[in-house]
């Protein structure tokens, strides 16, 4: 029935239960998360809606806890600027829009505009570091949570997305074409960049773009153990205890904490399922990665990369669920 509005085809997936990946030995968690009910390895409830936009070739809306990201895919289509055109392969162009500093309501609602600091004529914001570094105050929400990416401009995030998506799209099938991916952050409450990648992948699948792999992003927050040890006990010698606490899928409050490092890792999950016996290096490695926040130790970086592979497995299962529901819905619509 071609006359039906496309919303009929929108497949929305209900929130899944919290996913508990198995604990590995490298993850020690002496420090609890600010939201007490949440374990360090618990992901927030996920919910997705595909084909919600009628004018684009593919679209997806992903809600991760309080973070809400919307993505639309147009293409393959002819590039508007001939400079973008490549004769033998397609090009992915990403437009990332953060909106009007869309931050979640929790933890102070001071307007975002006072981040425009000194003589400002650009969109740069100053990180609000808490002057008081004691353990009690570090986890208080700062009045204005820093934007996703902690100061990275949209250009850098766009390139990050472009690299992550280009790695898995069969661009050779679309010479002289552009696949335009538009991301709109509706509400930001941590893990925005990772959610944007996952949302873009869902939208690409919705659009039916040929892909050779499945890039899945996972975000985690690394809290260095010795950071607080020094603060609490005020010891002169550095403990050199490089173990780190890893929190998966951080919220904005956790991301903005002092001394927290955020790591976003994109891995190709399609190749990992065929290499289950390979051991630790599942997934064939990192496609792209991004860190921001405080400095972290090598051990922290490695443990965070390891833990992200587990979180990616949950994300893949969720994506599969979303696509299955969409396909079933479409079959019913077409054949009923």
């Amino acid at each position: 029935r071609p006359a039906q509005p496309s919303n009929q085809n929108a497949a929305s997936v209900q929130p899944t239960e919290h996913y508990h990946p198995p604990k590995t030995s490298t993850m020690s968690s002496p420090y609890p998360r600010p939201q007490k009910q949440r374990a360090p390895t618990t992901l927030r409830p996920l919910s997705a809606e595909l084909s919600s936009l009628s004018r684009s070739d593919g679209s997806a809306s992903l809600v991760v806890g309080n973070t809400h990201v919307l993505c639309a895919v147009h293409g393959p289509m002819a590039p508007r600027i001939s400079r973008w055109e490549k004769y033998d392969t397609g090009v992915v162009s990403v437009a990332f829009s953060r909106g009007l500093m869309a931050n979640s309501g929790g933890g102070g609602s001071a307007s975002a505009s006072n981040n425009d600091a000194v003589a400002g004529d650009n969109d740069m914001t100053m990180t609000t570091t808490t002057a008081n570094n004691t353990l009690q105050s570090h986890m208080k929400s700062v009045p204005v949570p820093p934007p996703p990416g902690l100061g990275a401009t949209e250009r850098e995030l766009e390139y990050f997305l472009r690299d992550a998506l280009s790695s898995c799209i069969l661009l050779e099938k679309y010479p002289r074409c552009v696949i335009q991916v538009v991301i709109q952050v509706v509400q930001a409450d941590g893990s925005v960049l990772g959610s944007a990648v996952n949302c873009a992948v869902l939208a690409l699948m919705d659009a039916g773009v040929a892909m050779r792999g499945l890039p899945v992003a996972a975000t985690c927050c690394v809290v260095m153990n010795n950071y607080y040890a020094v603060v609490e006990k005020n010891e002169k010698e550095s403990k050199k205890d490089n173990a780190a606490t890893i929190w998966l899928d951080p919220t904005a409050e956790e991301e903005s904490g002092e001394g927290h490092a955020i790591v976003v890792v994109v891995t190709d999950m399609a190749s990992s399922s065929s290499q289950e016996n390979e051991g630790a290096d599942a997934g064939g490695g990192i496609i792209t990665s991004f860190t921001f926040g405080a400095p972290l130790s090598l051990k922290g970086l490695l443990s965070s990369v390891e833990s992200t592979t587990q979180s990616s497995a949950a994300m893949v299962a969720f994506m599969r669920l979303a696509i299955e529901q969409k396909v079933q819905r479409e079959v019913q619509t077409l054949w009923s």
Partner: protein
Amino acid sequence: KISGNPAARNAKDSQGEYSTHNDNSSGQEWILDAYRALEPGNYLQEFTSQNVRPDGRPFSASRPITVLQSTFTRNSYGSAMVTLGGNSNSDNNDGGSTTTTTTRVIAACTLLVGHPSPSTPNEGDIDVTLTASPLSGPRFDVMGRENGDISAGNYGVMKDGGGGNQQPLPGNLPNVVSSTHANNSTNTTPSPTDTKEIESWIRRTLRSSRFINPTELGIEHGVSAWRIRISIHILNHEGNVWDAALLCACAALADLRLPMVEIDRGVVKIVKNESGEQNAAKKGKVQRRKGRSLTLGPLPVPLTIAILPNNDNENTSNKNTLLVDPTHLEEDVAFGNTVTVVCNANEEIVEFHKKGSGSRLSMEQVAAVACMGFGRAKELEKLVLGR
């Protein structure tokens, strides 16, 4: 068949033409240049398959770094110039050919006074601008954007050392043109240098590395603070501008000396002559802040490594070739697949990101890269900050 005699002047090359290069070079060099320009991937592979790079470095060696501070004292309060590579003539007594694969970047700090945000009333800010121009390289346009079309580029040209000695040619040169090297079609995303991307990266790295303490930039609590604008310009782009730009920004900040200011009813004036006029300032409500340098935290040291897919069949244990401190040719061949790690001397990773769509990085490589970064951080902290 190409003759192996390097001194064959005015000889016809295999295409029956005289070399249009200058008289001192043979037709072979002319063919080499054409090969490098038309098939950079295969050209590079000639070298990497023998475990060297075109400029003679091993894979894990970076170019020598030269940091020169206080280069622009007239118009800025702190400045620096960083050169990656570059000839030191004393090294070339043996007549090895000198290459021009030097990346050169300059940075200067200018100061503005502005209003701090209410949530951080005592903190200043840093703004970073990176510019490029056609001066930087043949593929740059007047807006500072680089053309992504590889075939339009010219790479670092090998010049003769004084005595006409040239690099030994790969032995199988006659076979090269006819043999078919597998051409990777997966990593085809072009990655010309985007200055905005590098600006953003430098800005957030400077912030998260705590290299400078923003509370030192306050002038009057809640009323005025310094805004440092670091302007970086690429003088010569021969690869790895990321590292050079960040180092240059840090060196300029290390060189920065905030001037003495007078605060007169909320208006901040820079005092030109710091030594005199001490008494005149005492009257009225004019306050003074002394000129000072910034106290510096650990230097964030970047290390960029290009990732090349390893096409050799013998060496399948390691799927990628990692080239430290890539030249422009190597960056292009890698299609922008690089991994950059910024470390400081406290063995912390300030920033880690892997770019590029065509390659994958394994955990061992991540650890290896980070360890290299730590080593480099210790060296460079000594070089730039002298401690």
